[in-house]
């Protein structure tokens, strides 16, 4: 094990992530080839399916919306020095909050009051579900990673229990709640574009995509342009230094996880308020974990996360198209690629750093090599 030379900033921020992503893509391409398919054909169909038609693009952006929320959730916690593996559970709770308030009040409240309320309650539910593990880490010393894993299981048990025992419509076979009243339905992109006089195909894409963009901008301002965000990032880079500077790290743990959980909780606005219009099982189905890959790929920056979300949205949508067109291909391939990205861009992010440093040294010529030698 050698301590590698520090990379120049541009190489660390741009070259290394691209190299890592390329390795992950190559590994997935190799698997595609291994199971007897043509990677080029798969990519062509995938790109066309994801971006080639207005409808495909709509689906891509619909998936991306959810990933922006969960990706931001992971990133905010990460800036606070925490690994929030519980996005899945927080998103479930968020959807539950969104749905419960809709079932309860939508019949009597107008949409302009109902929709903000659903957003608020969803975010609040997610926030609480993240704040409990945060509290336990800050004040009782249990590790947030383990607790949030447990909270994922508790969340899905709670959802199943509520749906099966209380919310399910009697006499109905499928495990889902009654449909919400009309005021609790977030306008779809189709409807929204109609107001503007633009033709847009029917798809699950809805106006929560704007909410996701707002959330990304909001997280950017919170983290880099407010005192709260500064405190959070200071705690993340060094809890002891932050404490010496008068920041209470325990409060920061709860604040970071609370914001993180609230963001994950907003998934409900897309999946429950925007698409399904009722509570059901499986509306998160792994998006919390995709958020980890998204955040790692986007290097925990809101702009990067939006781009990475669109990439993952495209993979999910395009992957679905490929599974129709190419025999023997399934969307599990996309899940696998997601895993490779977490592995190469996350866990093994610096394995290739010495090689990149060497290549950078070659490009920059003798001066930096001499400097490197002086270091060694």
């Amino acid at each position, binding site marked *: 094990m050698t301590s590698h030379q520090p990379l120049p900033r541009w190489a660390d921020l741009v070259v290394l992530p691209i190299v890592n992503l390329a390795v992950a893509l190559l590994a997935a391409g190799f698997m595609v080839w291994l199971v007897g398919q043509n990677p080029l054909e798969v990519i062509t169909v995938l790109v066309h399916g994801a971006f080639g038609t207005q409808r495909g693009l709509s689906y891509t952006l619909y998936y991306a919306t959810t990933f922006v929320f969960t990706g931001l959730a992971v990133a905010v916690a990460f800036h606070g020095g925490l690994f929030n593996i519980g996005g899945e559970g927080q998103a479930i709770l968020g959807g539950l909050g969104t749905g419960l308030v809709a079932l309860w009040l939508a019949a009597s409240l107008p949409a302009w009051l109902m929709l903000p309320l659903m957003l608020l309650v969803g975010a609040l539910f997610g926030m609480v579900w993240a704040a409990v593990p945060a509290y336990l880490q800050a004040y009782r010393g249990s590790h947030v990673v383990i607790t949030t894993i447990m909270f994922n299981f508790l969340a899905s*048990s709670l959802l199943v229990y509520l749906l099966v025992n209380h919310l399910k419509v009697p006499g109905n076979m499928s495990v889902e709640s009654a449909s919400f009243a009309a005021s609790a339905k977030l306008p779809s992109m189709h409807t929204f574009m109609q107001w503007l006089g633009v033709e847009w195909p029917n798809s699950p894409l809805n106006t929560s995509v704007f909410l996701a963009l707002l959330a990304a901008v909001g997280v950017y301002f919170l983290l880099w342009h407010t005192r709260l965000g500064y405190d959070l990032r200071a705690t993340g880079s060094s809890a002891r230094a932050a404490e010496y500077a008068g920041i209470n790290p325990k409060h920061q743990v709860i604040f970071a996880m609370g914001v993180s959980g609230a963001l994950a909780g907003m998934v409900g606005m897309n999946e429950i308020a925007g698409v399904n219009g009722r509570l059901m099982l499986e509306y998160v189905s792994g998006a919390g974990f995709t958020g980890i890959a998204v955040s790692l790929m986007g290097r925990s920056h809101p702009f990067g996360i939006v781009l990475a979300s669109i990439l993952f949205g495209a993979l999910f949508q395009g992957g679905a198209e490929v599974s129709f067109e190419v025999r023997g291909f399934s969307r599990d391939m996309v899940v696998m690629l997601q*895993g490779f990205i977490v592995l190469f861009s996350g866990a093994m992010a610096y394995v290739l750093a010495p090689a990149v440093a060497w290549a950078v040294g070659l490009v920059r010529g003798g001066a930096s090599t001499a400097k490197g030698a002086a270091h060694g």
Partner: protein
Amino acid sequence: MDEAMIGSLIASTLRVSTPLILCALAGLLSERSGVIDIGLEGKMLFAAFAAGAAGVAFGSTMAALLIAMGTTVCLSWLHGLACVSHRGDQVVSGVAINIIAVGMTAVLGIAWFAQGGQTPAVSGDVRMQSMMPGVVAALEGVPVVGNILGQGFLSHNVMVYLALALVPAVWWLLFRTRFGLRLRAVGENAHMVDAAGVSVARMRYAALTLNGLLCGLAGSYLVLAQNASFVPNMTAGRGFMALAAMIFGKWHPVGALWACLLFGFLDAVAIRLQGVRLPGIGEVPVQAIQALPYLLTVILLAGFIGRTVAPQALGRPYLKER
């Protein structure tokens, strides 16, 4: 409750607990050496797939077991490469293994067997059969003994007894051998071990190798003993439950055994209590019983019942100073 029911409850508790015990011991060895292992779930899933595929392809129990264990040892080494050699984040690496497992086993399953990700059922002689059917048959009809001892304790396959035997074996390895002392020391204070002239990386790789072997056994059990074929995502959270059991057992083999048996018992009870009204409590929702292991672990970790102390150096990569 009659004795036939007690017998079957004991039997299913042991059956459900076996993969948990194997997996919890695997996690314990890794974490005692200071390497967090969130990837138990994924490794178990890989092992189940490998055992199913190899069992069908070679028609041999031994081949299935060896290939499953080989696969998981490689995965453990990958974890080691990322976190021990290159000081990557141990939790992220574990998460990666879990996600890759879900995707890759389904991809390969579909490509190789074309049954929607499932493998064909392994044949009867590859599957593990009850170890002492003669004894169980002989005891049948004997009051109490027949049901409880025969059906409950003696009707199992060899893996169940192996898992139970591995608990004292791992205890002995960890607490009564020089290797175990060093392994635990690496997990508590890696610098000290390094100063004593023992390679930290080598100890952690050794622990991860044992971890891989045990995960391989746990995953194979699902296919070779419980279910006849591999089904996508068949581990269904067992790896995480084993992780919880290991923590609940306070990173100690015997504690982990009791936790696994408790969780297995809750699982066995949950199915039987469906729709049953208990006196004084009323109907207990199945989900509540199924969620209990996770809830108990959270409460324990928070220090409300007893105190758990994780290995000191858990999650800290070791950088040898130059």
